């Protein structure tokens, strides 16, 4: 990691240069309360002072809701070709927990088997991170995802009259050298940065007590009363999965064009909360009850990947809490598990 500082006065020209040189994805205000990461053509569209985005930016780019994986032509012979898209892009203004969500997906899509469709896009994605204000439902601090220590090329932290710049890759360093001027960070800068981070961490209001969840979950696993209560109002709609920065479940569909010659395989996001998720040919459903599906979602997010990667598959962004029509609250439920077991 290289530590530099960028003068505030140089920031605007730096961003303008990036917008003109690259395919530049950044936050843009959509309405009063929501921003969306979209293609930015002019700096006037960019608004990095965002609080809320619905679909996580990195996931949208690297693992889009619909993605063609394979195309084929059916004739005398069948020709099959992979589809690999990998144009260079800048993702600008993504916050720490969403970077950590992307880091999870990076690890996931390169474990056991390498997913070229994901990773070819990831390798060409230049990530420039920036802090954003947490929402009231954000519990990233409790999860330890409020700070990003890798996954970005450059991370900009806005201090009083400068940006504290963390550079994690040679690519990031090159971009800074080419499009602006940075100076080495000195002890004073670190001091100011630390103070900023201390204050920043105070902004996270939602706390979860997750330390004992790993063990407590197994004790409460068989308590159907508890899970029925937790999942009582669930509509099995899958909104929680759609907005999750780390949810990765998908279906693969084979389609054929009207000419009956050209076909393709497309993956589309799926949701572990909808009843058909565990349904196999012949009609058996391995997870027919909503309480079992919710319970499995919690296991997947909060336990499974502690075993596999030593990490939660949850960054505490709180999106699933905000979008849930039934007001199911993963943070409260983590605390309830603790309470239920401790009583």
């Amino acid at each position: 990691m290289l530590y530099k500082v960028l003068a505030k006065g140089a920031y605007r020209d730096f961003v303008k240069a990036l917008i003109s040189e690259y395919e530049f994805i950044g936050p843009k205000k959509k309405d009063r309360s929501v921003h969306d990461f979209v293609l930015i053509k002019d700096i006037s569209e960019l608004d990095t002072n965002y609080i809320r985005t619905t679909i996580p930016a990195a996931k949208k780019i690297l693992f889009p809701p619909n993605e063609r994986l394979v195309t084929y032509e059916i004739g005398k012979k069948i020709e099959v070709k992979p589809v690999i898209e990998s144009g260079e892009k800048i993702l600008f203004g993504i916050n720490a927990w969403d970077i950590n969500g992307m880091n999870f997906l990076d690890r996931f899509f390169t474990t056991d088997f390498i997913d070229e469709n994901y990773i070819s896009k990831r390798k060409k994605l230049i990530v420039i991170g920036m802090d954003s204000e947490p929402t009231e439902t954000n519990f990233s601090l409790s999860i330890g995802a409020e700070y990003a220590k890798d996954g970005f090329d450059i991370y900009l932290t806005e201090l009083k009259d400068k940006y504290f710049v963390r550079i994690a890759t040679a690519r990031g360093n090159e971009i800074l050298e080419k499009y602006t001027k940075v100076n080495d960070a000195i002890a004073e800068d670190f001091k100011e940065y630390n103070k900023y981070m201390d204050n920043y961490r105070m902004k996270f209001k939602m706390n979860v007590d997750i330390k004992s969840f790993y063990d407590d979950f197994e004790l409460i696993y068989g308590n159907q009363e508890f899970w029925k209560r937790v999942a009582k109002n669930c509509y099995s709609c899958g909104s929680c999965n759609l907005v999750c920065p780390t949810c990765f479940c998908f279906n693969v569909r084979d389609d054929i064009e009207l000419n009956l010659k050209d076909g393709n395989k497309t993956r589309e996001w799926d949701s572990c909360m909808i009843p058909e998720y565990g349904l196999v040919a012949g009609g058996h459903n391995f997870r027919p009850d909503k309480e079992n599906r919710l319970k499995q979602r919690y296991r997947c997010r909060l336990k499974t990947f502690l075993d596999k990667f030593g990490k939660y598959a949850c960054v505490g962004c709180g999106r699933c809490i905000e979008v849930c029509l039934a007001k199911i609250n993963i943070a409260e439920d983590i605390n309830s598990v603790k309470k239920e077991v401790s009583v």
Partner: protein
Amino acid sequence: MVLGVQEEESKSTIYVPDIAKIRRIKQISPTEKVFRIILDDEEKQNNFKFKPGQFVELTIFGLGEAPFSIASNPNNHEFFELCIRNVGSVSGALHRMEEDAKVGIRGPFGNGYFPYDKMKNHNVLLVAGGLGLAPLMSLIKYILHYREDYKEIMIVYGAVNPESILFKDDIQYWSNRKDILTCISVDNPDDKWTGEIGVCTKLIPRVNFPPEDTYAVVCGPPVMYKYVVYELEKKKFKPENIYLSLERRMECGVGKCNHCHIGNKLACVDGPVFSLWEINNLKEAI
């Protein structure tokens, strides 16, 4: 980690199937056919090595893809066979296909296979219910190929009725051999049936292999497992010596789509064969 990976244009991905030909189709029951499959690429076919209990993902181009266990002898590298019930959209379409038709194949997949090496120098009890015989066929054929490496072998197989019995020729062959004990039972016998009647679970109390020297392998419909396991535990079989092949929905076969998750494991990459010891720690697996 990721950013340092060297650039290299890849010609294939984990989702690209190899083209294969259906070489032979054999109807073996009113609802099941056995498809003999050969990969078009000769080198790939020669290198297509699988372990008993592994599966492939089969694509019908323009329609869909589904996982199927391999039912043939792992020592045969000229082709492989899948025994498929006409029950879903892919299997239904497959049943309408004719010989020489082209399909796509990915695999073989599954790191959890039947532990044919550990079973050597021990007795082996194989319990199959219905279509569960299909995944066991590759193991049975493997064991028979190396018969002298194993002690006593018993095959317990239950079918709904006499006409739904699969692999009748193989069963006849096993019955004629003196070195295998074969017990077949049907739930609904017809007038001609002279064999056992009832679910295959009923036959397990008759097994007289010493449990500490025996491996049990079970494959069948989800509902069957609890009952078979109950009977085996009554017989004092150790959980680490009982192996079960689990069915789950799969969309990818390579540990990405997550549909086959069981606790913190995935049936596709960690299974589909698990020991009962593992299953007891997974909850809800059976």
